[in-house]
């Protein structure tokens, strides 16, 4: 009766490694417009197939097709385009600053700008975001002062976080952006708690949180979905599947066997799988989930399928573990390019305008950087005097003593 065959251990491995030619032929890219858009009060179980399909709004000619068209006016789309372009320009500049030794660390979001910007646009301004470290696009979309972002990275006298955090670990209650943690996944149940608080108070604000596909393996992912399901939290739980977690491809996070959107199913939550490089699709999915949440119908898990175009961070060299030009081959392209093409296609934008905007934003970033650097940088550590503050609301005796010992 017993099968006496030998067992063997399966270790997932990506198809290509450095030196190999990029090949995404096994990525199924369904045509845009094919996925139905259910009512927001659809039962999660009835829409389980959405977790395996791919919501796409822009077709190969960057035209809007299908029921997920969020019906946005050109002005709104241009705002989204600008925010994505500004995010990329900011990233490029800060990356360079790190390479020049001006800041200690940086994380780019290149190629993933839509995953932040489009969601920010679909939310209300007073909805609360619990981001991971790759959602700088949220702050930019919400108009947070770039100077403050930079000063945070420079840890200078104007750094709102007083030099206490690694660059990019922003925090802004005012802009609805929760303080970023270095520990993966912790923000997810926190977002659920925030959303439950809003529901408890009978308010109408909702929350959204972002996590990488790699970090979905953390326990906090499970806790968030469990609590969201049990208490019907008004929250958007977004998985940014950029296919890489530092050097580990998505198979190591479970992506060989299923999609990340499908994780929703086990909690009785809707799971939407979305082309994360399609600004309109991301917007539409977030909008659907936000409406559902506001109607007291609970949480939605959204997988945004994208590709991490650059290294994990400035501490990383992706050419050590994947073909170096893989991004170029990513079949779903670049979110900025695609939105630009769409706008041009409908006559709401021109190449010239685009180039002009590009230059304007580059100049803005450069100018802001000059301002930030004029204020100072890490080396000066100019908020050092506050180092002993904020451990507690009031400084206990032992910290007062230590502060004295430190000569402050």
């Amino acid at each position, binding site marked *: 009766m017993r099968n006496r065959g030998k067992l063997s251990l399966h270790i997932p491995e990506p198809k290509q490694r450095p030196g190999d030619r990029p090949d995404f032929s096994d990525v199924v890219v369904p045509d845009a417009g094919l996925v139905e858009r259910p009512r927001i009060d659809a039962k999660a179980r009835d829409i389980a197939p959405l977790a395996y399909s791919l919501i796409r709004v822009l077709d190969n000619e960057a035209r809007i097709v299908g029921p997920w068209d969020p019906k946005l006016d050109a002005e709104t789309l241009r705002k989204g385009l600008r925010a994505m372009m500004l995010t990329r320009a900011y990233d490029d500049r800060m990356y360079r600053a790190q390479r020049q030794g001006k800041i200690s660390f940086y994380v780019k979001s290149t190629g993933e700008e839509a995953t932040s910007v489009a969601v920010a646009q679909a939310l209300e301004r007073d909805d*609360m975001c*619990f981001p991971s470290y790759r959602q700088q696009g949220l702050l930019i979309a919400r108009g947070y002062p770039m100077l403050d972002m930079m000063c945070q990275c420079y840890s200078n006298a104007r750094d*709102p*976080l*007083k030099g*206490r*955090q690694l660059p990019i*670990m922003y*925090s*802004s*209650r005012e802009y609805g952006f*929760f*303080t970023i*943690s*270095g*520990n993966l996944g*912790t923000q*997810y*149940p*926190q*977002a*659920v*708690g*925030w*959303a*439950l*608080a*809003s529901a*408890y*108070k009978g308010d109408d604000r909702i*929350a959204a949180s972002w996590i990488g596909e790699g970090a979905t393996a953390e*326990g*906090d992912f*499970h*806790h*968030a979905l*469990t*609590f969201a399901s*049990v208490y019907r939290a008004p929250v958007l739980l977004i998985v940014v599947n950029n296919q890489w977690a530092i050097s580990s491809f998505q198979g190591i996070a479970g992506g060989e066997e299923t999609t990340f959107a499908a994780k929703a199913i086990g909690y009785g939550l809707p799971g939407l799988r979305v082309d994360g490089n399609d600004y309109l699709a991301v917007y539409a999915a977030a909008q659907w989930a936000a409406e559902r949440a506001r109607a007291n119908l609970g949480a939605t898990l959204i997988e945004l399928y994208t590709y991490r175009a650059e290294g994990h961070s400035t501490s990383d060299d992706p050419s050590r573990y994947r073909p170096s030009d893989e991004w170029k081959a990513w079949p779903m392209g670049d979110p900025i390019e695609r939105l630009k093409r769409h706008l041009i296609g409908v006559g709401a934008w021109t190449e010239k305008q685009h180039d002009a905007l590009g230059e304007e934003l580059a100049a803005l970033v450069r100018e802001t950087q000059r301002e930030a650097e004029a204020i100072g940088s890490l080396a000066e550590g100019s908020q050092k005097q*506050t180092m002993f*503050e*904020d*451990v*507690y*609301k009031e400084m*206990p*005796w*032992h910290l007062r003593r230590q502060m004295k010992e430190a000569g402050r």
Partner: protein
Amino acid sequence: MPAMNMIQALNSALDTMLAADPNVLVFGEDVGYFGGVFRVTDGLQKKHGVTRCFDTPIGEAGIIGAAIGMSAYGLRPVVEIQFADYIYPAYDQIVSEAARIRYRSAGDFHVPLTIRTPYGGGIFGGQTHSQSPEALFTHVAGVKTVIPSNPRDAKGLLISAIEDDDPVIFLEPKRLYNGPFDGHHERPIQPWSKHPLSEVPEGHYTVPLGKAAVARPGEALTVLVYGTMVHVAIAAAEESGIDAEVIDLRTLMPVDIETIVKSVEKTGRCLVAHEATLTSGFGAELCALVQEHCFYHLEAPIRRVAGWDMPYPHAFEWDYFPGPGRVADGMRRVMEK
């Protein structure tokens, strides 16, 4: 003033705060309809409603994680971890998040969260219903750690903890819930009602965090204790005839160094006792502080009486528990030279 046991006193604190502040929420495993496995939240759901006091999934990290998010919204959550032994799954959310959010956000966010949890042995709970993990929190900058030893303090300290704007780990000595246990497990259980500190004011009052109490004044040596060990130390003093000054720390972090130093400077001798395992227990910190602050007053080494360095062994509870005999021995050793 009504006599209350510690459960009633804690219940009264929660009731008072639920009534006083609509931002106070109470939740945890089995705390809702049922009222908690130790009955501390008994009746609160019925009185204040299901959204004010409710059950949670069995996921300690989820409980604390959600509570942190609620804090960011402006609520003041009071959560129960069913046994302190089960706080470890939430350790990351406590250490990396609750403790650090004020600091890392430069005050942009803070976490006025209270985590209540029963700790300590003496109920034959075996190794996963008996632990005393306080030192795992006193090492974490950004959280406060509080341990009451009697009903009056329990209520006053819990209200202070809830009103505090920083995260507080509130450890409840479960062996004291129903009576002032002095370690004499072979004797009949005493009810709280005979103890003066079971007189608990109704309504709102506070016992400040960060302030110790002299539980028994004395001249011979100073004994630093908290929770159940306060009663054990008093018993040891009475039984050994050694005139110990027993200090009930009440708050471990921030510890009341003034009261400690004043006493040790007077007595010149010091014993530290706790139920937690010895090595790297909070007693180590107390020893370090006392020898540093009172070195030239000390006439003998500070001794520690503590749980042995092992998991709490079910059948040998009373061999593990640092009872009055062992504490008295410790006192004698400190008095030796």
